[in-house]
Structures are given as structure tokens and as C-alpha cells.
């Protein structure tokens, strides 16, 4: 019947039907047009014909035409003007339903020319005798404000809207409140709502009479009010509490928000305070019998409320027990709240439940249940023993993921209660082979290292992990390194070989700077001062705290002010997911004020009361702050043990690191802080490292600058014996600009192949798939040699490292700067563009060593204008070391001569596109500055 395809013929047919004389036929035609519109077909070509149908007294047809107009007016602004007359006329219609319909629709047409005509009808409708028209007009002011804020202010609509708060009809009041609240959000300082005891009183009266939705608007608005003193606060609470019995969960949650906020101001010894606390529990429990989606919203909010005021629900543990048929999202949230409510009084019950859950089918749920048992042990000391034995029972089930999860939490229990449960280590060791997840492996290795003196075959166990060292994840590698060092310090005689082995694996064969740096530090510590090493590595660890996943207090306060809203569901401030100015204002709980104080000093009263909408410090953070804020937020995963996630680019001075940061770095099972490239601080540090066979990773500045000119900056650093220089990864595409996808990366040359090494991080809330990459034409014809290998979908907060081999046979176009590369990355969400600069050094090919004779001949042939000269400052290498180091980057020394105490090195480089570069490096002993002359030729 309905047609869902529109082709040219059909458009023609519809046109004819629209212009038909028969009303019924016309209406059917408009219906068909709307149907096509719904499925996304473009029927804008019919605009004039549809608008022609507008002049009708058939309300149903009129509504359909209006619907069409709302969709297409924006794309056809000129033709939309045709409709204006009808709108203006309809706004005067005797039928209030038609007046309202006209003003409602007109507000939805976002065409500047039309908004001009809207003002007069709107003004009339705001003062219409019929409440239905007034309530529609109230919302229309918000619509107009969204299109043209200035116009609304100029025309004085805001004042009219404020007057409507005193309207006799409750629905008009509610809509006016909603409209004003929305407008006020984009003017944080305007004091638009002007909440004062009188207007609050009006709102509270309307609250009893309006629809359920109106009650929500009013309650949400009330929550922004700052009462003058505790008495006013109490009287508002008293008038809001009846809403807790409303059947609509949103009304209940909004009422809870108002109460939670205003309760802050009540003195705790007040009887009413206790009564209020008691009144809050039952409605919260009742929310759990709502539909599952609402249960989820309620549970996310209860999670906040329990953190803020644990006393409210402390006796209601049982209602959070998971039901067999609950959807998974409800189950996981309930579990979270159960742990928060766990106490000595109810721990037996909780444990019995958790044990039941650990036998369920959903893997995520089971894992979380196992983890919860561990958290109970840490939270309620008396239960620790029972928890441990429960975990051991679970390990006996041999269900792989249960075992792994149990081992991870047992590690935490060891840290909380040292020297208490180590008897179970034997059981844990039995499961060593079945562990395949990095976290579990790392936990197990930590346990073995930490208790090496009690495990007879600790060396064998650790050695078994060492075989596949390079296949392990970073987490495991770091843990293994630390564990073996611990083992060595405890049993030095038998394990010398093992420690040598792991140190060389970490420092020489690894590309991971974190691992290398930690390896170097251990190596140096062990070789210089074993006693100090012992003190550092085997230092006593700080106990882990009971609840590590609590929301940070200021954020919690802000979220409490947002109860019921999306912010409370995401547990993030609105600024983290709302674009633009809206919701940036941070809300804060009111401070407790003594009643006497505020009556005695009127100044305090006026400040507190007058600030109305600006209870929060209404500062709009600068873009930078906001960005930082956001990134922090997205980064923080709900970890169970405290250490911050590795933050790349954390700059730490070398000395500082060795002094304070070291014990935390080496002794505990933490992921390491990224030491960055600046570890050595300067070459002076490197000189002091005589005992260490290898040289410190250099303080190289990434040669990202210009083109060939600063090529030789490379030599500026201190030596790196193996492989070419790889600049540290930098962020190329921040998550803000790419809908949550963050890309950082660097370039490297490995075994003659140029690799683009990318780190993709998903900071959005949805899974990303279907990655692909493409380059724009560039100076050296770089192009991906294969597809971007992201095999599994990237889930939120996940990071993946990808290496993309590049070829140099792509199309060439000169870029500015020369080493600029424009990249497009695509995923299921969108296509993103960024540009980055590659170090020229990765284009140096391995066969760049020129024959001596050829070199000499060419050197002379190069014209002078091809020559340039510059200095490298502060380089403390002698000429041989420099030469070795440069060779690693495919810069070859052809000859060397010494003139007047100066070493002259002659070098050749060949670029991937066949260009040769010849250079002369002048090194004066004792002078840390090098001089480079270089020249370029092209060999065809």
C-alpha cells in the first residue's frame, strides 16, 4: 500500500495527485510523500505542490503538510516563505488547537526570514486566552532562542516568559519553567530564572497540580535553587517529599535530587534530617521494580547516592541481589552496589550470593563476581579468610577465566594482608600453565617474585616465562623483570645467570622504552650498590586502600546535582559529553549554613540567596582546560589497585626519578610510568654511567623540524648502539577531533623497511571497527604497503599498537615542509584527517655507502649553491662514537682525516628516491660543537 521508493515517475505521479481537486486524493498523496520522507527519500522536489495543500480546513491534512514543512523548509528557504501567510493566518484562527499548531510548527522552521514573521504571532500567542496556546507558545520561545538568541532578547520575550511562571494554568507554568531553564543554561550568569522564595513558592504550588512531566521540569529547576538557610531548605524538602510516592520514576528521581541537595544544608542533629534519610530508602528500593531500562538508570544513581550517603541504604542489601532473569546491565550494576554496601553485618550473605554468581554463564558477570569477592576481602577484614577460601574453591573449578580472575584478586589480598595467606601460594602455582591473560600472568609473576624465598622452585617458574619473553605483553615483561630482580636479591647465588639474561633481554632486544629504562635502572643499581638495590627493590610496600574505585569527591558532588540525568548514568560531568556551552557550568552542592548566622548578617543571606543560578563558580573553563578535563576523564579506567595508567610523555628529570620515584617504580606491581625520552636529562648523566655497558637512551630531540637542513641533528644525541633512531610517539590525532579515536605514532626503519608505528586508542563509548588508512601524495612517495591490520574491533578504552609497513613507490608531490605527510584514517564512525612529519632519517637506505673514488669525484662536482653548513651543539661524543651511531641510521662514514686537532669525517647518505647526500663532519676534541657541511646530488 504505502510506497517506499521514489523514482522520477513517481514524483510526477505524486505531483499530479497533490494538485488533484479531490480532497481525499490530496490527503493520500501527502501521506505517501511523508512515508517517503520517513525512510529518507528525497521528496523536496514536491515542495511547492505540498505547500499548496496547506490552505485547508482539514486539520489532519494541515498537520501532514506542516510535518513536511518542518523537514524541508531549511533546504528551500525561499519557497518556505510561501507558507508564512498561512501560518500568520492560522495563528489568528478561532480554534485554539489550530492557533497552537501554527505557532508550534512555525518555531520548528529554522529559516531566518520566517523567524522575523514569527515574532508578532508569538507575542499574541504568549498572551492568548487559551492555556493550550500559551503552553505551546512558551516552548516556542525556547525554539526561537535556539535559532536567534538575540532576537528573543530584543523582542522582550524573556520577560513575557517570566510572567508565565505566575500563570493560573499549571501546564503553562511547567512549560515556561522548562523553556527558561534551557535558555538559562546558555547564559550561565544571566540570573534569568531569578529564583527567590516567592517564585519558589509558586513553583511548589504548581508542582501539586501539573502533569507528571511538568513535575519533572519543576523539580529539575528547583534543584538549581540555593535556599537562604536551613529553615527554608527544610520547608522545601517537606513540600517535595510527597513526590517520592509518584508512579513516574523520573519524578521520584528528580525529587531525590532536590532532597539530596538541600539535605546538605540541614544540621545533622535535626530530627527532620533523620526522618528525611529514612524517607529516602523505600522509594529508591521501589525503583528496582520498574522496567529494566529504568532500573539501570536508578542503579547508576543509587551507586552515587550510596557513595555520598551510605547510611540511606545500608539495611537494604537484599534488594540488590541479582535475579536470574535480570538483563546483564542490571546484573553488573547490582553487583557494584552490593560491594559498596558490604559490611561486617551482612558479609556472610553477600559472600554466599557472590559464590552463586560465580557459577553463572555470562563471562563478564562471573569475572566481576569473582573480583567482588576479592574486594569484599579487602573491605571487610573479618571476612578475608572466608573470601580467600571461597576463591580457592573457585580455583578448584578449573574454569579458565574464573581461575585467572581469582589470581588477580588474590594478589591484592596479599598486598592488603601481608604474611597471612601465603599458604595458598602452592595452590596458585598449580595453575600457572593455564594462565593466558596478561593481567593474570602478571599477577602470578608478581606473587612468585614477592614470595620468592618461600617458593623453592621460584627460579624455574620464572625461567619458564622467560622463554617467550618477547611475545609477552608489556605488563608481563615489566613484571617479570622486576620479579627476577627481586629473586636475585633474595637468592643471589643461584640466579645470577637468570638476572643477566632478563636484563639483556630487556635492555638490548626490546623496543619498548619503558622496559628498557627499567632494565637500565636495575642494571645500574645492581652493579653499583647492591645494598641500595635491596633497599629500593625490596622496600616495604604501602598497603592498598579499601575502596579504590570510589568516585572522586568533587566529581561525586557534581554528579549528585545531576541525579536522574545522563551525567549520572555515565558518571561523567556533562561537559564530558555535551558539546558547546550547554552544561559546561559545574554544579556544586550547597554549603551547610547555620540558621542564626544568616539571619544576623543579612549580607551573607543576600549573597547566598541572590546567587540563585550561580551556586556553582560559573566559570567556563578555557578550551585547554576543558580538553584536559576530558582526556583525564576518558583515561581513567576503573582499576582496582591505585596506580595511574601509563601516561606517555610524562617528563621526569633523571635525578628526581632516582630519588623519589624509584621505589614506587620498582618495588610494586605497578605498570611503570613512562620515562619519556628525557630520562638522562643530559649527556652529563650518561658520562656517570660508566659501569653500565650500554649507554643511556639519549635525550634526542625528534628531528621533526625542517627538511634536509637539520638532518644531522641526529648526531646531536648520545649514542644508541642498536638500530636506528626512533623518535618517541607523539599524538597526531587527539580524541577530541576524531570522535573519540586517538592516534599517536612514530616512524621507524627496521631491517630496511619503513614502518609507521601507530597506537590507536578508543576513547569513545562505542566499539570501533573497520579501520583503514590512506596517504595523500607526498614528497617521497610514501604509501602503505599493506592494509591497516586492526583485526579485532577496538572496544572503549582499549588501545592497540599497529605497525604499518610503508613503501616508497607511491605518487610524488612536493610538500611543505618537505617531510609532511597527510593521512586519512577511516573507521566505522567517520573518516579523520591529520598530518604528521616523518624524520628524514627513515628514508636513508642501507646501500648508502659510496665508493671512496666516486665520493671524491662527486664531492668536487657538486656546485657550491648546493652546499649548506650548520653546527650541532653540545655533543659529547668522540668522532668514532659518532660515526658508529650515525651508521646505525644508515649514515656511512667513507673517510676520516685529522687536521689541526680536528677530526674530519666524510659521509654519504642515500635516500629512498635515489638522491645522494654527501657530508663533512668536523669534530674538534674538547669542543662539544660539531660543524657539518653537506651537499646534495642526484644520481639518475
Amino acid at each position, binding site marked *: *500500500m*504505502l510506497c517506499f521508493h521514489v523514482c522520477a515517475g513517481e514524483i510526477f505521479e505524486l505531483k499530479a495527485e497533490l494538485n488533484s481537486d479531490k480532497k481525499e486524493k490530496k490527503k493520500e498523496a501527502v501521506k505517501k510523500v511523508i*512515508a517517503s520522507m*520517513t525512510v*529518507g527519500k528525497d521528496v523536496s522536489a514536491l515542495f511547492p505542490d505540498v505547500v499548496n495543500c496547506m490552505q485547508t480546513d482539514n*486539520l*489532519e491534512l494541515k*498537520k*501532514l503538510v506542516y510535518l513536511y514543512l518542518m523537514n524541508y523548509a531549511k533546504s528551500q528557504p525561499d519557497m518556505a516563505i510561501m507558507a508564512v501567510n498561512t501560518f500568520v493566518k492560522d495563528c489568528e484562527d478561532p480554534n485554539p*488547537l489550530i492557533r*497552537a499548531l501554527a505557532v508550534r510548527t512555525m*518555531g520548528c522552521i*529554522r529559516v531566518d526570514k520566517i523567524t522575523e514573521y514569527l515574532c508578532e504571532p508569538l507575542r499574541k500567542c504568549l498572551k492568548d486566552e*487559551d492555556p*493550550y496556546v500559551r503552553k505551546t507558545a512558551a516552548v*516556542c520561545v525556547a525554539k526561537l532562542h535556539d535559532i536567534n538568541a538575540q532576537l528573543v532578547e530584543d523582542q522582550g520575550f524573556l520577560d513575557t516568559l517570566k510572567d508565565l511562571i505566575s500563570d493560573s494554568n*499549571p*501546564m*503553562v507554568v511547567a*512549560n515556561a519553567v*522548562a523553556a527558561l531553564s534551557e535558555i538559562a543554561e546558555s547564559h550561565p550568569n544571566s540570573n534569568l530564572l531569578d529564583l527567590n522564595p516567592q517564585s519558589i513558592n509558586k513553583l511548589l504550588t504548581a508542582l*501539586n497540580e501539573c*502533569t507528571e512531566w511538568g513535575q519533572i521540569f519543576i523539580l529539575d529547576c528547583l534543584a538549581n535553587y540555593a535556599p537562604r538557610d536551613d529553615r527554608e531548605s527544610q520547608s522545601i524538602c517537606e*513540600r517535595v517529599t510527597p*513526590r517520592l*510516592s*509518584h*508512579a513516574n*520514576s523520573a519524578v521520584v528521581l*528528580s525529587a531525590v535530587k532536590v532532597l539530596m541537595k538541600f539535605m546538605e544544608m540541614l544540621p545533622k542533629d535535626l530530627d527532620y534530617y533523620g526522618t528525611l534519610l529514612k524517607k529516602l530508602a*523505600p*522509594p529508591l528500593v*521501589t525503583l528496582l*521494580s520498574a*522496567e*529494566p*531500562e529504568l532500573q*539501570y*538508570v536508578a542503579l547508576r544513581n543509587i551507586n552515587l547516592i550510596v557513595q555520598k550517603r551510605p547510611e540511606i541504604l545500608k539495611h537494604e542489601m537484599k534488594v540488590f*541481589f541479582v535475579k536470574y*532473569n535480570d538483563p*546483564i*546491565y542490571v546484573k553488573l550494576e547490582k553487583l557494584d552496589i552490593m560491594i559498596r554496601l558490604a559490611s561486617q553485618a551482612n558479609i556472610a550473605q553477600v559472600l554466599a550470593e557472590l559464590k552463586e554468581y560465580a*557459577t553463572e554463564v555470562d563471562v563478564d558477570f562471573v569475572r566481576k563476581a569473582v573480583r567482588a569477592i576479592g574486594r569484599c576481602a579487602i573491605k571487610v577484614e573479618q571476612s578475608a579468610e572466608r573470601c580467600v577460601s571461597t576463591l580457592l574453591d573457585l580455583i578448584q*573449578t578449573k574454569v579458565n577465566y574464573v581461575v585467572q580472575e581469582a589470581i588477580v584478586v588474590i594478589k591484592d589480598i596479599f598486598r592488603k594482608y601481608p604474611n597471612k595467606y601465603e599458604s595458598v601460594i602452592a595452590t596458585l602455582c598449580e595453575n600457572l600453565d593455564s594462565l593466558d591473560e596478561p593481567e593474570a600472568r602478571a599477577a602470578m609473576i608478581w606473587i612468585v617474585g614477592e614470595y620468592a624465598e618461600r617458593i623453592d622452585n621460584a627460579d624455574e617458574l620464572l625461567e619458564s616465562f622467560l622463554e617467550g619473553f618477547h611475545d609477552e605483553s608489556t605488563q608481563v615483561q615489566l613484571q617479570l623483570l622486576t620479579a627476577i630482580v627481586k629473586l636475585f636479591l633474595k637468592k643471589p647465588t643461584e640466579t645470577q645467570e637468570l638476572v643477566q639474561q632478563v636484563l639483556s633481554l630487556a635492555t638490548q632486544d626490546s623496543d619498548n622504552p619503558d622496559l628498557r629504562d627499567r632494565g637500565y635502572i636495575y642494571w645500574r643499581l645492581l652493579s653499583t650498590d647492591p645494598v641500595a638495590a635491596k633497599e629500593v627493590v625490596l622496600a616495604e610496600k604501602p598497603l592498598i586502600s579499601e575502596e579504590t574505585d570510589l568516585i572522586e569527591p568533587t566529581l561525586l558532588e557534581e554528579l549528585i546535582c545531576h541525579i536522574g*540525568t*545522563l551525567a*549520572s*548514568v*555515565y558518571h561523567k560531568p556533562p561537559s564530558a*559529553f*555535551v*558539546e558547546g556551552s550547554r*552544561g559546561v557550568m559545574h554544579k556544586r552542592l550547597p554549603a551547610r549554613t547555620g540558621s542564626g548566622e544568616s539571619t544576623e548578617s543579612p549580607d551573607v543571606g543576600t549573597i547566598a540567596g541572590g546567587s540563585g543560578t550561580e551556586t556553582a563558580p560559573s566559570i567556563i573553563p578555557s578550551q585547554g582546560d576543558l580538553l584536559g578535563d576530558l582526556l583525564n576523564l576518558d583515561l581513567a579506567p576503573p582499576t582496582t589497585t591505585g596506580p595511574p595508567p601509563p601516561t606517555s610523555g610524562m617528563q621526569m628529570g633523571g635525578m628526581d626519578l632516582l630519588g623519589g620515584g624509584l621505589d614506587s617504580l620498582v618495588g610494586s606491581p605497578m605498570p611503570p610510568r613512562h620515562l619519556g625520552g628525557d630520562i638522562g636529562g643530559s649527556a652529563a648523566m650518561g658520562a656517570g654511567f660508566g659501569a653500565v655497558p650500554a649507554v643511556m637512551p639519549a635525550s634526542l630531540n625528534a628531528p621533526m623540524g625542517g627538511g634536509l637542513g637539520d638532518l644531522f641533528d641526529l648526531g646531536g644525541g648520545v649514542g644508541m648502539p642498536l638500530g636506528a633512531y626512533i623518535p618517541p610517539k607523539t599524538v597526531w590525532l587527539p580524541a577530541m577531533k576524531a570522535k*573519540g579515536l586517538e592516534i599517536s605514532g612514530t616512524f621507524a626503519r627496521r631491517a630496511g623497511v619503513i614502518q609507521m608505528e601507530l597506537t590507536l586508542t578508543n576513547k*569513545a*563509548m*562505542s566499539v570501533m571497527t573497520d579501520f583503514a588508512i590512506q596517504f595523500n601524495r607526498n614528497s617521497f612517495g610514501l604509501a602503505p604497503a599493506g592494509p591497516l591490520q586492526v583485526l579485532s574491533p577496538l572496544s572503549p578504552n582499549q588501545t592497540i599498537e599497529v605497525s604499518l609497513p610503508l613503501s616508497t613507490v607511491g605518487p610524488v608531490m612536493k610538500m611543505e615542509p618537505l617531510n609532511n605527510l597527510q593521512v586519512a584514517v577511516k573507521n566505522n*564512525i*567517520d573518516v579523520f584527517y591529520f598530518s604528521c612529519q616523518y624524520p628524514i632519517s627513515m628514508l636513508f637506505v642501507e646501500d648508502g655507502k659510496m665508493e671512496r673514488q666516486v665520493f671524491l669525484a662527486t664531492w668536487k662536482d657538486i656546485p657550491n649553491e648546493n652546499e649548506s653548513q650548520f653546527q650541532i651543539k653540545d655533543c659529547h661524543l668522540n668522532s668514532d662514537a659518532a660515526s658508529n651511531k650515525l651508521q646505525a641510521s644508515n649514515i656511512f662514514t667513507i673517510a676520516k682525516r685529522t687536521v689541526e686537532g680536528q677530526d674530519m669525517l666524510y659521509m654519504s647518505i642515500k635516500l629512498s628516491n635515489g638522491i645522494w647526500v654527501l657530508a663533512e663532519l668536523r669534530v674538534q676534541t674538547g669542543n662539544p660543537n660539531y660543524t657539518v657541511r653537506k651537499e646534495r646530488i642526484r644520481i639518475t
Partner: protein
Amino acid sequence: MIGGLFIYNHKGEVLISRVYRDDIGRNAVDAFRVNVIHARQQVRSPVTNIARTSFFHVKRSNIWLAAVTKQNVNAAMVFEFLYKMCDVMTAYFGKISEENIKNNFVLIYELLDEILDFGYPQNSETGALKTFITQTGIKSQSKEEQSQITSQVTGQIGWRREGIKYRRNELFLDVLESVNLLMSPQGQVLSAHVSGRVVMKSYLSGMPECKFGMNDKIVIDKQGKGGATDEAGKSGGGGGKQSIAIDDCTFHQCVRLSKFDAERSISFIPPDGECELMRYRTTKDIILPFRVIPLVREVGRTKLEVKVVIKSNFKPSLLAQKIEVRIPTPLNTSGVQVICMKGKAKYKASENAIVWKIKRMAGMKESQISAEIELLPTNDKKKWARPPISMNFEVPFAPSGLKVRYLKVFEPKLNYSDHDVIKWVRYIGRSGIYETRC
């Protein structure tokens, strides 16, 4: 506020799309389809954030309803609205199905225009909506009728229109309870609660003022103090309790909440037809209609002996119906032999359970089933988790003990009195999650 509302079929094709805010583009329609409807994984949350746009969804049979926003909206309100939208659609054209939606799409657009303005929910009571949004086209209305409609839609009593007339004034009250239980094998109650609803179907003329009374402990105690001679005391078995303690209750929006808060009296003007007047929850002094006594014995490694006794615990004159006991069996069950004195029992391999059904059972009786379960020997070290035995039933009384004391009707403008109204009250107690661990 809500930026747009989309309805999809199970394949992810858009059936209805209505955009209210400029910040929601057409691509949002596709984003939801790709990321949620077509997602490979099971839905892990009813709220999804895709590229800074939040999607709220509910599912009704095969149909997805999604509300979209880019702002920090009241999330509870959005879900309440989506449920309401489902109710409204059901009231207009019955079941929410792809066919019904396609056939009524004009009506749905009209409703969406009316009940959601710029993303703000407006009056969504079907009683009021049906006065001016009809499927048969608008009848020409007189001026009085028009203003009556508008004052009703915006007025204090938005859920009822004026001028309703019935020849016979009649009302039906259903007290529907579901009783939930978790019991230990030793017969200890681990948790028990009743969640109940009072559903009212009224066919009353005019704008009747109603007052509902029940044996709420707080009200009875208050009256007791006032000098009335209510003797306290309980007589178990059938729920002859004088009063009950209600943990919490919520009311339909027609009930005057401030009055309930102050006086604990329930007064209201009901919507015409059916409405859920109140919901409540009790946890104290619940009459558990049945007790299940399980006995499971493992005989060697390949055999289980199960004996289950059920005892009915209510007045002998009452009859329980639709009784069903579900006894879980291990996954490696190879054969089952069942003997039961009453009803029929069957082993259902696909559900891993013995299902025992009894049509009717009077109070204060008991019945028994015994079964021998043969097991296949397995080398699975994992022990059988022994899921609880669950039960379903229906009894003609309220397990919470709730009693309707009165429902008075006053309509001062019309000439009928409380006595002329024919009132019917019915109690139905059903099993919720009624489980005994074994």
C-alpha cells in the same frame, strides 16, 4: 531534551523518524542501526553514546524505539516517556508491530507532534488525547467543545474529560500481587516480599471524587488511637490480619500526593476506564501460600534421588490454581522416572527440568513427588550447581494480607450517590520468583 525519536523494525529499517532538535542529523538514524541494532554483541546497556550523541532504547517485541539527544537530559524521564509512548500507541491501535506502525504512521506522527514539543513531553494521557486526536478525522467541533478540550489537556485533571455519562455506574477493583520467595533447603526464609498493584476499572459518570481505603497499619493505628475499638490480633491462614505494614507505595498521577503525605488518605478523580491506581511493596508478615520441602540424595556417581513435598498454607475453603513445580536436573541426565500422587509430571530434557503440574489444590493439603534420575558418568570435575526449585501458582487472596476497606464515590454535580455505584473487588495472588534452594 529529546532531540529525535526513531522507530525501527527488527532489521533496522526506519519506520518512523521525527527530529525535534537541530543538533540531530539524519546520520543519527544510521548510527543507531549500525552500532546497536546490527551490533554483533548482546546489548550491554540501554543507553549508548555514539560520537557524543546519546541513544536511549527500549524494545517491544520486534520493534525498537530510540530517543536521541546531544544534551544532558533527564534519563529517567526519557525512558518513562518511551514507555508512555508505547502505552499510547497500544491504546490507539493495539499491539506494537511493524504492520500496525506502518498502517498508522500518520497517526503516530500526529501523536508525536502533540505529546513531544521541542523534545519536552506534554500531556500524554490517552483519555485526553483521544478527544482530539482520532483515527477517523476531526469532527467539526463547536467552540465550547474546543475550549473544553484545551482546558482538559492543560488542566489539573488532564487524564479525564468532562461530560462522561454511564447508565450504570460501576467499578472494578483488582488487587494483584506477586509473592517472591527465596528459601534455604532447611526451610529458612532468605528473602520474601510482595509487590502488589491495585488496578481500577471504572465506568462512572461525571467527575467523581473517589476515596480509597485499605487496612494500612498506619491508618488503622491512627484510628485506634482516636477511640475506635479495633482489636489487634492476627488469625493466620487466609489473611485475616487486621492491618498490614506497607514498605512503600507509589500512585497514579491522579492521586493527590500531598494529601497522602499529610493524612495518608488516598483521594482522586479516576481516569475513565482502566488505570493502575497504586503499586506497593510489603516485606512483613507475608502469607507464603506454599512451602516446598526438597530432598536430594546422590546415590553413587550415576544416580540422584529427588523427593519434593509441597504444602499449601491457606484456608481449606480456598483453591489454588495453575500450580507448577520445576525441579532442575543435571546436564548429564540420561533418564528420569517420576512418581507423583497428584497432577502430572514430566521430564523435559530441553529445559533440564522435571515439570510437575497440578490444576487445583485446596488449602492445608500436601502433595509429593519422587523421582529417580539416572546420570551419565562424566569426567567433568565441575560439580552440578544445583539450581533452586521454582514454583508457579495463583491463589484467590492477597498474600500480603491487604484488604480493601472501602472505595467511596462522590459526584456532587450529578444525582447518583455512593450507594448506587456497583463495586466489585477481586484478589489475585501470583507467584513472582518463588524459589527454594536444594
